[in-house]
């Protein structure tokens, strides 16, 4: 189908004219840079705590519950900066989809699309709530 056969507002290529397209581009940039930074932090951290002498995966054969708080405390005490960097990357990576949902919610609220705005904010609240389940 050719663009000429379709209503004018169905596919507008200029992001300045289409707010949804504009938002999509902003989210796209946020995700792109966010993922790159998070992965760089994880890679840097991983290289720092890299251990050639033993198999670091051996200690994960059995499941042992140790909260994030406890792991962070011991990493801080031992000045384990590599581990802390990798954790920073993990936190940044997980926060990206949450930010994306929040941005979408604000967009739909501005557009007065109440149902989709409510859906976005509900997803946002559930995501925040889900974190508390791990504590």
């Amino acid at each position, binding site marked *: 189908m050719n663009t000429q056969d379709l209503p004018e507002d169905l596919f507008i290529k200029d992001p300045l004219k289409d707010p949804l397209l504009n938002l999509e581009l902003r989210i796209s940039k946020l995700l*792109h840079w966010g*993922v790159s930074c998070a992965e760089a932090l994880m890679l840097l951290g991983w290289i720092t*705590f890299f251990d050639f002498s033993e198999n670091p*995966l051996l200690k994960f054969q059995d499941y042992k*519950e140790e909260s994030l708080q406890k792991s962070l405390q011991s990493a801080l005490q031992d000045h384990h900066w590599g581990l802390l960097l990798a954790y920073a990357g993990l936190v940044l990576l997980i926060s990206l989809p949450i930010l994306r949902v929040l941005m979408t919610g604000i967009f739909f609220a501005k557009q007065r699309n109440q149902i989709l705005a409510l*859906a976005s904010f509900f997803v946002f609240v559930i995501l925040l709530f889900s974190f508390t389940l*791990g504590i």
Partner: protein
Amino acid sequence: MYEFILLFCSLIAGFLGSILGLGGGLIIVPTLTLLFHVNIRYAIAASLISIVGTSSGAAASYLKDHFANLRIAVLLELGTVTGAVSGFLIAKKIQASFLFLLFGVFLFFSAVMMLRSRDEHTSTKNHPWSEKLNLAGSFPDGKGGVLPYNVDNVPFGLTAMYAAGVISALLGIGSGIFKVLTMDRAMKLPMKASSATSNFMIGVTATASAGAFLLRGDIRPEIAAPVSVGIILGSWMGAHSMIKIPTQILRKIFVIVLSIASFQMILKGLS
């Protein structure tokens, strides 16, 4: 040395996942548990992190190319996110052996689904919810024009997404096969729009359980960092691969590999 091997395996997982349209989770969980003997709970948690990364990275380009439907994604995320929270709560209660069994079964299901035909199932009618929420969309056809589409069976789609969310949190996978299947077959979205929208949603679904796994301490950087970096690099290489790969042959080989891995996971679950 082992971490380098893990990084390399993750790179291959990401590469294959990208060219075969599979999530890295389906490959990396069996790799971690069967090859590296990592406990399945750590494997699932590490896999979820890599899913957040790959989905966010892929979503960026899908959005830029206007394939993903943001409105449908927002609505269906209601189902996937609540499902993922339920899945996390269920995962806490069930034994690791059951997780192996479930993963084995799902792996076999995915192998069978890889063999299915990929015909388009578009709809001529729009569901009333789709009318109300303006869910119908369009995407570029690659020839300068656009392909408009309608959206059907929205309530069923929402319910199926809840199930996809539960499975995602339980097994550490994106459940992309479920999501695409629902959007393609039930909601009658074109395949490209289904895949892109599914990929876009996967990151949010995985985050709903990954956040809880992180705070509980199940996401260990020693595993998650090489897995995530490897899978992301691998998927990037897969997406930008200029080599002509015979995907049909690769798909058939991979069906066999997945079936063997499925059998081994079931066996481990039973033992």
